[in-house]
């Protein structure tokens, strides 16, 4: 067996065992606080009324969609440049999580769009670029699974993740470059947030909660993936031991 390939994964296991409880606890806390604040405490918007509460789900999901993609691109670079087996596994593990956040962003945005803009879907630059992000996630997952050899799939999809990273600035700045239906950034701007603190705090709590949730999901999925690979290697070893006799 080529144990050196699993040497770093075993390091990972120790590290993740240490992080996991904190991340899980933190996620529960932040999401609990954030949701309570968002749904019951924070004021309705003077323009949007109660439907503003979708924001606390939608906006952090949008941030996470992009943040996870940035991680994916980084994992891709690590796969290609350092050929790190853990990076391979990580990319494979986090892509569906990122796709799920993107889908959440699209779904909540679309739910929100009906009362606000009077339509479920609009081919606006921001919405469209997020849809493309979702497609790139799908393509990444399809490519990752398209090969018999897991390493080949990981490397091919890593190239795609890097090429697809162009889309991130387009999403971020689409609202500034084209005049769109979607509103421009009000939290993450250079000159400080333009949003009332009673809405800002729950929003930030949700954002931190989402991030920790992502960490938890990523750790679990990476470990599942590692176990699956070990199992695959064992089965293969059994089979080849089979012919050896």
């Amino acid at each position, binding site marked *: 067996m*080529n144990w050196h390939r699993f040497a770093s994964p075993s390091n990972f296991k120790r590290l993740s065992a240490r992080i996991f409880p904190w991340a899980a606890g933190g996620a529960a806390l932040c999401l609990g606080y954030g949701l309570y604040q968002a749904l019951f405490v924070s004021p309705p918007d003077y323009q949007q009324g109660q439907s503003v509460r979708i924001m606390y789900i939608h906006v952090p999901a949008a941030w996470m969609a992009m943040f996870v993609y940035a991680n994916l691109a980084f994992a891709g670079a690590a796969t290609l440049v350092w050929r790190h087996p853990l990076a391979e596994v990580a990319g494979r593990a986090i892509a569906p999580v990122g796709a799920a956040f993107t889908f959440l962003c699209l779904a909540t945005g679309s739910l929100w769009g009906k009362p606000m803009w009077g339509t479920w879907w609009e081919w606006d630059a921001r919405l469209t670029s997020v849809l493309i992000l979702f497609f790139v996630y799908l393509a990444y997952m399809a490519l990752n699974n398209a090969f*018999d*050899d897991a390493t080949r799939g990981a490397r091919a999809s890593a190239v795609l993740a890097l090429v697809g990273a162009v889309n991130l600035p387009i999403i971020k700045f689409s609202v500034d470059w084209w005049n769109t239906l979607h509103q421009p950034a009000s939290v993450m701007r250079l000159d400080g947030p333009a949003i009332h603190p009673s809405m800002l705090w729950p929003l930030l709590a949700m954002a931190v909660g989402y991030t920790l949730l992502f960490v938890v999901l990523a750790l679990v999925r990476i470990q599942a993936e590692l176990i699956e690979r070990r199992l*695959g*290697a064992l089965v*293969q*070893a059994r089979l080849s031991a089979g*012919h*050896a006799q």
Partner: protein
Amino acid sequence: MYRSARQFFSPCFFLLPASSIDCAPMIGRASFEAHDLACLRGGRIVFARLAFRVDAGGLLVLRGPNGAGKSSLLRMMAGLIGPAHGALLWNGDDIADDPDAHRARVSYAGHSDALKPALTVAEHLVFHAKLRGHAADKVAAALDAFALTKLAELPARLLSQGQRKRVALGRLIAAPAPLWLLDEPTNGLDADSTARLEAAIAAHRETGGIVVAATHLDFAGAGATTLTLGERKAA
């Protein structure tokens, strides 16, 4: 052309692996050797702890049952797959250090013939010479060496199995390179063509070239070394 100057100045006497005991007198300057080589395919170890050494003018015959890893070893020698462990050395330098230089010195003829149905025999050879940075002046010799001259203007789709193989082998002559890697080169060849291949190999070795060939048949040449791969993998 693309060949780096490094191979001519490589310290042939340095870095000789301790395990290498075969120090036969060298005709040319080149040597090709492996130490402690291991190959991993699809997560399985195909072979490990492999070592060999061939010097200029040498012929290494790879033998072993189906699935022993002969083809994998040849692809590794060609630089198409990387070793899981150990290294292949040309004149003492790890081939992974300068893959471009290694590619320039290898001519690989695998299982598949790499023929385009619509191109003629001659066009295949001319293209291959140019692809490898040579002029097309050896093409006539290549056609001659494998009795392809009369087929030169036929498109590849009209060729029989053995004729196709001969075109693939003609590439060795059309674009000369010091190291020939041949995967079951006699498959499908008739007696006459097999004799021609043996002649081509002998001529190549005479000029100091190195040949590595995988085969299941009685196929050899003067002074050939045989490397037998993993008996135990037989299945």
